[in-house]
């Protein structure tokens, strides 16, 4: 099932479609408020600032020493029988997984939530090979049968009401379920159960790899991560190359930072630490464990000013607090990663040609930087990308406009002249002290809002009037 994103080549076009569906903003708004409230309640009484500072230091230290930790981790992982594959590109990663599935004659794959796997469109590729791929995280499952990409990093179907989910299940499965979340969940549990037991391959993501023991670890609440990594004979984990920590000691801070920021929990229901395939003495567990370490544009970010974006632990808090995301969900960003993290990461991974409008899909309010548990200066990165864009890709019209504007306003005399000319120029457009329809580019303002007119006497004119 290929998932169709919202139509539109630009953020503005996609947002236009989504803003035209008021239920999205409504559902999202209340869901995000709940998530923020739960997080705030949990963190009240903790020293959040100390946790964030420690989190920032831990991630900065790790990324700065990334090669060393990846080396240590992969040596220890391989010593325990894990097969580690380093993938330069998404295509390389996909082909490796396809080869494993082919060799194992896999016909059914169960998948836990993995943003990295969606980034490389893994499920699509396996499906073209004739393999049935089933999303098992409830939110991802809903989105899969709706044939839509996830709308949020942590809660993929957060933009849907219970009624929409009911209608979806009933339509796809021919059932007559009520809209009670418990009922819908029970149906999903039953439906996916058999699949877990029959699946040939389980694919998951990785929340944190631990260099100290060559382990990977997965954070889930539903149990699908445990199912996918325990029942099928083959477990493949897709891991962004930056998702690593030096040792378990750092988890003292990193795990609660993640769970508190993502779902307002002290800890997730399951924290699953996997150090290799089953040992000879184990009664169950997968025969094969593969970890695909994915670059796909990440290492190119390391030498840049944006390196700290790789500190991200994918908690989704920035999405929860973003006033732009709240109106439209992740679907407006045309990428697996939406919201502030997506507006920075997507152009860095895919290039400014393709995603250069995303850094402008923000009012720079700074709420994301404020909430990030590892203190990534997200809004600074957005500004930095805008600078890069202005240098490399700005159109002549935009460049000239700012050039003229700054020339005019670099001298008080020219600035005063500008004021007088504006007062004259606005005359045909002014209705009383308002402008209802302005010429381009201010027409983009007056589509939805009135503009004030330039004051009859500006402040500085009044000041000089008063003879001070």
């Amino acid at each position, binding site marked *: 099932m290929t998932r169709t994103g919202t139509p539109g080549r630009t953020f*503005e076009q996609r947002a236009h479609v989504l803003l035209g569906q008021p239920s999205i903003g409504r559902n999202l708004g209340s869901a995000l408020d709940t998530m923020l409230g739960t997080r705030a309640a949990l963190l009240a009484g903790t020293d959040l600032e100390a946790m964030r500072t420690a989190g920032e230091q831990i991630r900065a230290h790790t990324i700065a020493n990334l090669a060393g930790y990846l080396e240590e981790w992969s040596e220890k992982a391989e010593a325990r029988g894990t097969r580690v594959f380093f993938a330069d590109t998404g295509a390389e990663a996909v082909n490796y997984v396809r080869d494993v599935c082919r060799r194992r004659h896999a016909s059914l794959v169960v998948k836990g939530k993995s943003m990295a796997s969606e980034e490389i469109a893994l499920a699509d590729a396996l499906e073209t090979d004739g393999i049935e791929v089933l999303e098992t995280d409830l939110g991802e499952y809903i989105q899969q049968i709706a044939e839509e990409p996830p709308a949020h990093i942590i809660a993929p179907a957060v933009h849907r009401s219970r009624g929409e989910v009911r209608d979806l299940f009933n339509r796809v499965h021919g059932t007559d379920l009520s809209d009670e979340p418990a009922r819908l969940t029970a149906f999903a549990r039953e439906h996916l159960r058999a699949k877990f037991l029959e699946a040939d391959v389980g694919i998951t993501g990785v929340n944190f790899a631990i260099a100290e023991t060559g382990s990977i670890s997965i954070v889930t609440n539903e149990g699908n991560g445990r199912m996918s990594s325990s029942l099928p004979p083959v477990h493949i984990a897709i891991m962004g190359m930056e998702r690593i920590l030096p040792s378990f000691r750092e988890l003292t801070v990193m795990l609660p930072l993640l769970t508190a920021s993502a779902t307002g929990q002290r800890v997730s229901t399951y924290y699953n630490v996997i150090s290799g395939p089953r040992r000879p003495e184990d009664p169950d567990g997968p025969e094969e464990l593969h970890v695909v370490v994915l670059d796909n544009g990440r290492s190119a970010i390391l030498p840049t000013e944006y390196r700290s974006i790789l500190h991200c632990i994918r908690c989704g808090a920035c999405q929860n607090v973003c006033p732009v995301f709240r109106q439209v969900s992740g679907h407006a960003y045309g990428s697996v990663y939406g919201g502030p993290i997506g507006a920075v990461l997507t152009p860095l991974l895919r290039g400014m040609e393709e995603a250069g409008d995303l850094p402008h899909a923000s009012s720079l309010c700074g709420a994301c930087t404020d909430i990030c548990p590892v203190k990534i200066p997200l809004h600074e990165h957005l500004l930095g990308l805008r600078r890069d864009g202005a240098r490399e890709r700005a159109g002549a019209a935009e460049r000239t406009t700012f050039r003229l504007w700054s020339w005019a306003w670099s001298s008080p005399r020219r600035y005063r002249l500008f004021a007088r000319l504006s007062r004259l120029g606005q005359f045909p457009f002014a209705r009383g002290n308002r402008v209802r329809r302005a010429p381009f580019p201010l027409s983009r303002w007056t589509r939805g809002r009135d503009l004030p007119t330039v004051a009859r006497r500006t402040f500085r004119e009044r000041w000089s009037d008063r003879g001070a």
Partner: protein
Amino acid sequence: MINADRRPERVALFVTCLVDLLYPEVGEATVSLLEEAGVAVDFPVGQTCCGQPPFNSGFVEDARRMGRTLLDAFEDAEAVVSPSGSCTAMVRSHFPHLFEGTPDEERARGLTSKTYELSEFLVDVCGATSQGSLDARVTFHDSCHGLRELGLTGQGRALLEEVDGLELVEMARPDACCGFGGTFSVRLPEMADAMADDKLDQTAATEADVLVAGDSGCLMHLVGRASRRGDRARPVHLAVLLAEARGLR
């Protein structure tokens, strides 16, 4: 930084381009409030704009060109006060980086250490108290840059609370961005409108007569949208409301 122990006798007014050109009454109210607080006000005429519009669009050289007028205008001032959180934040948070490695580096740093937003100056430096009286139900919008870049956590509300007869009610999310974001409001107008609608809906739910904010950008955006929607609450700058309450003109 200056603090309450060393209140300056004179300050230079950084009026901002929006106030100068579109909302001069905000500038006048600012001057009145400062003079009432016992501080004399100068207005160096060389100032034009802090350079935020080109800066936020990534055009740094253009931002420097505009911002330099402030470096020139305020070079000799002991303190600079502005009725705008975002313009003050532009100076305090971004000027050091903007002018780093240029001949203006030192002046930029100097300006950073002596520029204040109006409400923080009145409360933290002047220790302003009684604010007159006004019979109104008022709700407050925390402008983003003031809140997050300057750390203005309570000065605006503290001043409002000192007004006799004024009832301050909180909207559901006072710190949510109104959608102005400078050029954002023109680049993504539909999104900016949706965000303004959110803010105005929250305001309407409080049944406030007045929506107060410390930034003219936010106010221009909200007034413009409210005008189309027919909202009852009038968006007003904090300085104008306080001056009204004090009977100053």
